[in-house]
């Protein structure tokens, strides 16, 4: 027996199917058994009735015509065509046969003090061996008269029912076994596909997915859910790989610069040591800033939902940041406007949202050339809350917009500007912590960075009033 068929027999599907078939067979047998028992009882009763009736007629004849007339009648009946399906025997007091189609008194099972006799038909009858139900009466002079009928129909019925029962039971067991095997094979095949996928994934092939049949059955649901889970795992692993790769790249560069600076300071006699150290601290601060941003993103992704949330007046949030950033924008030669007020408050983390907007404003100020215009505002529509920072700077090409949200990505145009490239991914992580996302839209010209959050139901606002 191969391992697969052994697993088939052990599978729960097979056991269930086979158990079901077994139960079906037993129930069927029981029901047929009851039918058999009741039917034979009815048949026996009918035979008994007709035997009694005939015996009554014979007794009447005996009373009217005496022994000879009875013997004649018995012989006539025994030798008729129907007599082959009857048993007759008339004996005198010494046990000699006087008439009938039985040679000797039959051996059998007697009931009611010998008034009824059950035996099997002799060779001479129409159906040898079939059961006979007979009645016995006493004759004058100590003789006896036996009259019975063969129950060929009963036997045939019993045989048919028995055979049906046997065949039915066998059939349902065989079917149950077969169907169980088929079902189990199907279930095992689907599970094996899932197990194989799990195996290849364990071996490092994260791309593999569980095949989904079109049937929409429970295995498909399982497969779809597993695939969604695998997609997420793959994305996480991919993100982790990217982060590792980028840490290696983006941290190595400033660390290498730091090393060069220190080494140069050591070699160069003319170098001002304090200046070298101050520059070195600047480099280290940059590296630490990158680490802090990474840690913040990791914490945001790992923290409990709605931690530290409070009701935030968006107009206050916007005006506070506008007040903080307007002078800087003006010094950089940018026009800065904010508003109009939207009159909406939402539940969120004040610290995180201001940090996110501050990052967006930092970016806008950094990348918009002098003479440009910055606009900061909040708007609410269709259950969506949008916190927007728009500039008319160079913008981000459409194909690069998704990319810049990933940790460390900096477009080539921006490589010469300071910063670790973590700002937008931090903003994106903050948006996700609020159940929203960061959208980068074309402001034609320039870029519109939007923190799009879903507005909470108005219920709690009403309640609080």
């Amino acid at each position, binding site marked *: 027996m191969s391992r697969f068929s052994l697993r088939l027999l052990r599978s729960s599907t097979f056991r269930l199917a086979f158990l079901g078939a077994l139960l079906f067979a037993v129930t069927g047998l029981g029901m047929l058994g009851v039918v058999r028992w009741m039917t034979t009882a009815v048949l026996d009763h009918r035979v008994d009735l007709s035997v009694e009736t005939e015996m009554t007629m014979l007794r009447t004849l005996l009373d009217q015509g005496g022994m000879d007339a009875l013997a004649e009648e018995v012989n006539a009946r025994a030798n008729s065509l129907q007599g082959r399906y009857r048993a007759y025997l008339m004996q005198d007091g010494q046990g000699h046969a006087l008439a009938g189609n039985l040679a000797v008194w039959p051996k059998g099972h007697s009931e009611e003090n010998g008034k009824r006799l059950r035996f099997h038909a002799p060779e001479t009858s129409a159906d040898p061996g079939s059961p006979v139900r007979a009645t016995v009466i006493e004759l004058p002079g100590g003789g006896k008269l036996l009259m019975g009928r063969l129950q060929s129909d009963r036997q045939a019925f019993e045989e048919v029912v028995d055979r049906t029962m046997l065949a039915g039971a066998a059939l349902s067991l065989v079917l149950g076994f077969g169907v169980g095997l088929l079902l189990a094979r199907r279930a095992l095949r689907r599970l094996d596909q899932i197990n194989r996928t799990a195996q290849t994934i364990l071996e490092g092939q994260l791309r593999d997915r569980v095949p989904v049949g079109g049937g929409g059955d429970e295995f498909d649901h399982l497969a779809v859910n597993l695939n969604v889970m695998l997609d997420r795992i793959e994305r996480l692993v991919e993100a982790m790989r990217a982060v590792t790769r980028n840490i290696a790249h983006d941290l190595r560069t400033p660390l290498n610069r730091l090393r060069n600076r220190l080494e140069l300071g050591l070699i160069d006699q003319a170098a001002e040591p304090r200046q070298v150290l*101050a520059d070195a601290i600047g480099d280290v601060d940059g590296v630490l800033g990158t680490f802090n941003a990474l*840690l*913040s993103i990791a*914490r945001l992704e790992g923290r409990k939902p709605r931690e530290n949330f409070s009701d935030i007046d968006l107009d206050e949030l916007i005006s506070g940041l506008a007040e903080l950033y307007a*002078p*800087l924008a003006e010094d950089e030669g940018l026009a800065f406007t904010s508003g109009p007020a939207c009159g909406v408050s939402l539940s969120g983390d004040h*610290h995180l949202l201001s940090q996110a907007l*501050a*990052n967006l404003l930092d970016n806008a100020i950094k990348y918009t050339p002098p003479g440009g215009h910055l606009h900061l505002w909040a708007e609410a529509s269709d259950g969506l809350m949008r916190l927007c920072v728009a500039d008319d700077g160079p913008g981000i090409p459409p194909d690069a917009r998704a990319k810049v949200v990933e940790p460390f990505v900096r477009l080539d145009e921006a490589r010469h500007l300071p*910063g670790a490239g973590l700002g937008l991914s931090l903003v994106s992580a903050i948006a996700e912590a609020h159940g929203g996302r960061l959208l980068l839209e074309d402001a034609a010209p320039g870029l519109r960075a939007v923190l799009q959050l879903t507005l909470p139901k108005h219920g709690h606002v009403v309640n609080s009033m």
Partner: protein
Amino acid sequence: MKVLVVEDDAPTAAFLARGLSEAGYGVDIAADGIAGLDMVTAGDYAAMIVDRMLPRMDGLLLVETLRRMGRRLPVLFLSALGEVDERVKGLQAGGDDYVCKPFAIAEVLARIEVLMRRGEAPAAAANPLLTVGPLEMNLLAHSVKRDGVLIALQPREYRLLEYLMRHQGQVVTRAMLLQAVWDYHFDPQTNVIDVHVSRLRQKIEKEGEPALLQTVRGAGYILKAEL
């Protein structure tokens, strides 16, 4: 003036001790929470710097215990746990301020000095006048004068100047200003604070007048009257 540093990382403790003694403080170092508690209750310290995570007794518990004993000396928490809620936990436990690792020594010095001065002049609250050299701020009238000439300030500039005047002669860092004046607790990537300070400086220092608000390189700003 002695400061107790409770820090288990020896190089960090030595770095702090060096910075503090250069700033003119006496420094003792405790390497774990229990030793720290023993030393601070036995000795006469003007302030203590406590790491959040310490062997034998957690920094939070140390400060809570200290406060339950009724000791009011200023406590500055140091921690690698930089999140805002961690900061809040530190302040709730009885800390007076919170600095995240990695830190610049200037940040620690500026904050510890502010904490110790705060304990020095409790009577100042009753006085509605703050003065720094020729500069005079009337807290009741919300007015600022230099040499008797009224200076018009925006509300935020007023609060910035008030903070600087309350901490005159002390170095205040950009992060301290962003926290105290704007109530933001993040590190700005751009020189957003510098712009506000330089605008304030233009208003309080006219052409040819002696400078009051000075930039301290690598640390922050200091407001003081020229000697």
